């Protein structure tokens, strides 16, 4: 299983999704489209998302597990859904702040 730490990047093996870890540390079964994610640059890119994990990812959105132990940010969207083990990650809705800079 890959080692997660904030800032580490992962790519889907079955779609174009790429994420960056915002929160979470240690080994985790991070998946996309039902398949384990690979470190960025090491994904084979073959295959297709499994039907029960094919909801897609959205650019710039954050995804969390139910307990919010991990949080990832989508840096490239794709057709697969993110998951931790068999459980799908949920889209974290955050009200954007007005631009102050």
């Amino acid at each position, binding site marked *: 299983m890959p080692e997660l730490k*904030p800032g580490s990047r992962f790519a889907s093996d079955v779609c174009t999704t790429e994420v960056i870890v915002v929160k979470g540390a240690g080994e985790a079964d991070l998946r996309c489209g039902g398949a384990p994610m690979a470190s960025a640059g090491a994904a084979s890119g073959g295959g297709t998302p499994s039907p029960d994990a094919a909801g897609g990812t959205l650019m*710039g959105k954050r995804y969390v597990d139910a307990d919010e132990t991990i949080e990832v940010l989508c840096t490239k969207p794709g057709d697969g859904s993110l998951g931790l083990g068999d459980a799908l990650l949920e889209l974290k809705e955050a009200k954007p702040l007005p631009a102050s800079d």
Partner: protein
Amino acid sequence: MMLLEMAAAGFGDRIAVGSLDGGLTFQQLFDRAGASADRFRAAGADAVAMADVSSAALPISLFGAAWADLPFVPLNYRLTDDELATLAGRIAPAIAVVDPSAIGRLSGLDGVSVVDRDALLADLADLVDATVPAPEWDMVGEGTAILLFTSGTTGEPKAAVLRHRHLVSYVLGSVEFMGAGEEEAALVSVPPYHVAGMAAILSNVYAGRRIVQLPAFDAAAWVDLVRTEGVTSAMVVPTMLSRIVEHLEAEIVDGETVGLPTLRSLSYGGGKMPRPTIERALELLPDTAFVNAYGLTETSSTVALLGPEDHREALASDDESVRARLGSAGRPLPTIEVSIRDEDGTEVPTGGPGEIWVRGEQVSGEYRGMAPRLTPDGWFPTHDGGWMDDAGFLHVSGRIDDVIVKGGQNVSPGEIEAVLVAHPGVSDAAAIGLPDTQWGERIVAAVVRSGEPTADADQFAVELQEAVRAELRSNRTPDHVTFVDALPYNDTGKLLRRVLRADLAHLGDGSTP
């Protein structure tokens, strides 16, 4: 740096900085930052300094320094040659990117190698296709990203340390990745050595918003850039906004004006905003969303925001307590805790005045070579006074210490007083800030004359103003010199500036910020 890599990977073809025609894309910015990192490393420097106005070289050098794992140090180019050289000496060995017309100001210093900004940009442009592989970034890195010299109260500037983890926390906590539409553009007119100038680059890069730079602020040029570049958001300090308001008012012909139709959002901060100015601005720009941002260098910029709806609600309200929110800093960011403490560090009841303390991952509170100012449980005492109202709006009453903030620039009273007291006709002197609609604060000097006054008072006042101007800089010259019999001191010999400010309140313009 990781922020820029994400931007380059996510939306590399968008223009990052400059005009739509001829600006640098995010990918080009990334590649140039990588190439500049090689150059900075090769110089054997421990820091990358910049003594220059805003240009494309600013984001390149900021990210290039991070790439090379070196602190970026924007220096105030308005300092005197001696002051600038002293600061550069403190960060040596350093490589300094400078304005071509100011090469001489930092040349010949031990441990400081100087690079002409235009030459750097030209060199980097020649390396366009030399893509450098990005190393692994550490998002929670302890490395120093930015060193910002504060003006400080004692005269000796302190170097605030902003680590990568502080800045990444700030950006991730307050900005949505690629949250900006492709048509959006932000106008940056605050100088690089102001924390807002640094935050503007990081936030807008992460949001995917094009940055348009105005190197030297001028209201006409600012308004012109908003119109020609289709600027959608901007950040200004209070003095800039009052100039912009004046400029827009002068444009009104027969009650009609072009206004600034593209400007969706205008953020202001960096000092007290006079209420008349913000009220007039809201009237002149009815379609613009106003945001008041409160923050400090040591907190990686913004910690509290007064949002657009808060502004309109306050302006429309008949309730003075709601209207008073217009003068507040709004509510703390979701990632920030705010606590109002008394002199012993005990939290005061809601509504009571005290010192503003803040806590959060973006809060540094650390100066190079000094003990951290954070409490063991992570609170940063800001030295700003204020209170929190029932609805959770933070009201900032000003520095607890005595720095005068004129036009967004901190002015240390001690420096002015030293010059005044050095004059043979002066036995004692104090400089204080009093309310001023245009500048936020005006500098008033209270002077006790020595011996029997010989010169005419008005003439002597002008002479003292000239003495300060000659010794320091024009922005530190007292706007008004008044003569008093004695200054108020307490029994331990400490000057009671509060008493003096009250005594001389009639020399302010009575504006209520």
